[in-house]
């Protein structure tokens, strides 16, 4: 694990959400199957559904700009497959 438990001082933490979605034009087999199932279940006014990933990230850092950069780095390095996915970062609360 390598991570130490940190004192819970609210000031030092920031929370972000990251949503990761498939780029436009990239096939979304999952969304397709879910859409068909919902239509079969009678949800006839469903026009479109696309599936993606969602992360909730807590950072030990008081400075929002620095923290956001960290999250950005996580997305680029691991969380997002930049070839086929787009992402959006939002600060929470």
């Amino acid at each position, binding site marked *: 694990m390598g991570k130490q438990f940190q004192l819970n001082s609210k000031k030092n933490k920031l929370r972000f959400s990251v949503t990761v979605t498939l780029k436009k034009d990239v096939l*979304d087999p999952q969304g397709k199957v879910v859409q*068909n199932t919902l239509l079969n279940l009678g949800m006839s006014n469903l026009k479109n559904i696309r599936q993606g990933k969602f992360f909730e990230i807590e950072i030990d850092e008081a400075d929002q700009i620095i923290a956001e950069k960290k999250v950005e780095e996580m997305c680029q390095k691991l969380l997002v497959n930049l070839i086929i996915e787009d992402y959006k970062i939002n600060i929470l609360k």
Partner: protein
Amino acid sequence: MEITKYIIEKHGLNLEEFKSIQKLLKRDPNLLELGIFSAMWNEHCSYKSSRLHLKKLPTKGKQVIQGPGENAGVIDIGDDDAIVFKIESHNHPSYIEPYQGAATGVGGILRDVFTMGARPIALLNSIHFGSPSHPKTKTLLNGVVSGIGGYGNCIGIPTVAGETKFNETYNENILVNAMAVGHAQKSKIFYSKAKGIGKSVVYVGSKTGRDGIHGASMASAEFDDNSEEKKPTVQVGDPFTEKLLLEACLELMKDDSIIAIQDMGAAGLTSSSVEMASKGSLGIELELDKVPCREENMTPYEMMLSESQERMLIILEDGKEDHARKIFEKWDLDFVVIGKTTNTKNLIMKFKNKIEGNIPLEALASKAPVYDRKWSKKKLSKKKMELKTLKKVGLEEGLIKILSSPNHSNKSWVTSQYDQMVMCDTAQRSGSDAAVIRIHKKNKAIAVSVDSSANYCKSHPITGGKQIVCENWRNIISVGARPLAITNCLNFGNPENNEVMGEFAECLDGIKEACEFLNYPVVSGNVSFYNGTNKKNIFPTPVIGGVGLIKKLSKPMNHNFKGEKNIILLIGKTFGHLEQSCFLKENFSIVEGIPPEINLVNEKNNGEIILKLIDSGLLKAVHDVSSGGLLVALSEMSIGTNFGIKIQKPKRLTNLIGYFFGEDQGRYVIEIDPSNLDKVVKLLNENNVYHDNLGVTQKEFFEIEGEMKISNKELFKINNHWYNNY
């Protein structure tokens, strides 16, 4: 829109080729037509650099039902059973997006096999990565392995064999080759040749999107309203849809509704329609408005060039449309009649009541360019290894270095990510010389294996070419199967380079010679050129995928020692050839000299006698001796069993390192019950097969008297840690 020089280049065509197009059309092509020429005339589809050389390969034999030229090769395994198989590369896409690239590679080769009416029964793969210390290797390895597994596991076809190798020559260009093997009834094989005029051309499977419209997409961006950047989009595999497509196609194939069928692989709708029509000397007319599209406002250009996966084109007998439609609708797949066959011998594309393109089919197929590219002979190294000049290495130390190296480590980290058992006919899984797959509900089986030797092929292409065929043949024999035929995937660098083209020509000479001698014909294959970057070409890496037959399967033969105090014989002569050996590479990082020679006469003789011994039930274990030499072969027979060896040093005066690590070809190690020794030796002598009696098996220890002793458990640990710590 004007066709500029820039646009021509973007389509991968040179000006000479463009002039030929003008001549064939007797006018300028429009953009759609140019795109189609570019798709059909590129190296991948036209084989323009390789065709002259491929002609050399032996493709015939009593066992061959269909050789190269169809979606896959077909061989006869007796009764009404046929085996359909092919290998294909997906190198470049896998480097860009390893998971999806590898997954769609598997999907593509599966379609080639079930298009012909076969139910796929096994998947294999040959994957080559750069040096483990290269920053990209780990991600690529993870992505490729899970992509191969992801697709095969989901569709429910066992992935049973393959090879995983590392070599810095692949740092910027990995190799991902996938092979599929299917079973069909001999009397129900489907081909891609269209017949008859006015027949319905049917599109089935997934919808068409803008995936994989490559270099060409730049050109199309210019006339597109939305200025949004258009990167070539990556194809995403949908194994679930492929499973539906597989079942639907096989269901439709039960009767005789289908005249011709072809998967949409590279160059999608273009190549499938062109191939079917041109093989039948017919014309074809497509109404592109009818093509099921995933995106809005797709242009004819995009529809014709899209490489969306999980799609097929079928030409139906008259009046069968409703029957076929019902089947595809049952499986929730699109089914649309998008055109018909004609007698014009042209490909005509209509869109919104207008003819958007009209090309004589022969211009795309038989009149496609063929190049006799310049090539130069390999200059062979004269270097001989002088062991004396090297630091002394003990047998145990040398063995441990090899067994713990990435290339020789146990591959279960890879293979446990593949479902090897689904379909319940896998009698022998990954880890043995060849996998054994039973023919469903029968007691016969096939053996399958893929093999390559890039270092051998680099240093001596002719010998390398022979060697990979022979190694594959040996692997098939080691499980007691009669080798029948091969498929090959020829991964090479830039064919416009004389040396690369020379490697290609000479490797093929070697493959040809071995295949001819062993009656092991080539029934299908694939060529992948332009592997490399910045003028650095990869080592020539032809990959051989072989299939053999076991007429009566009891428990398949494998390489694990079965008991103690059994006798161990080495079949074939040992000279101690160390140049290009794994021993020198792993212990001294030396990759030099020329590889061991292939003696086809001995190869065949030794192989035949091993088969005979297995058939007579005289052997308990068999293993071929390959990379790493005798000591590595013996350790592989011990690891994972309770039995090791207790053997003596050779009596005659030889260099021990050469004896135990030399990679002389055509050799096998066999384990026999002492009571059978006389019988076996008699048979060997009668057939002029050389053998050494090495010693016996013993419990739990791996021992060369006076030289080394190590426990099996320890060997197992040494052999198992690399992947788990990488």
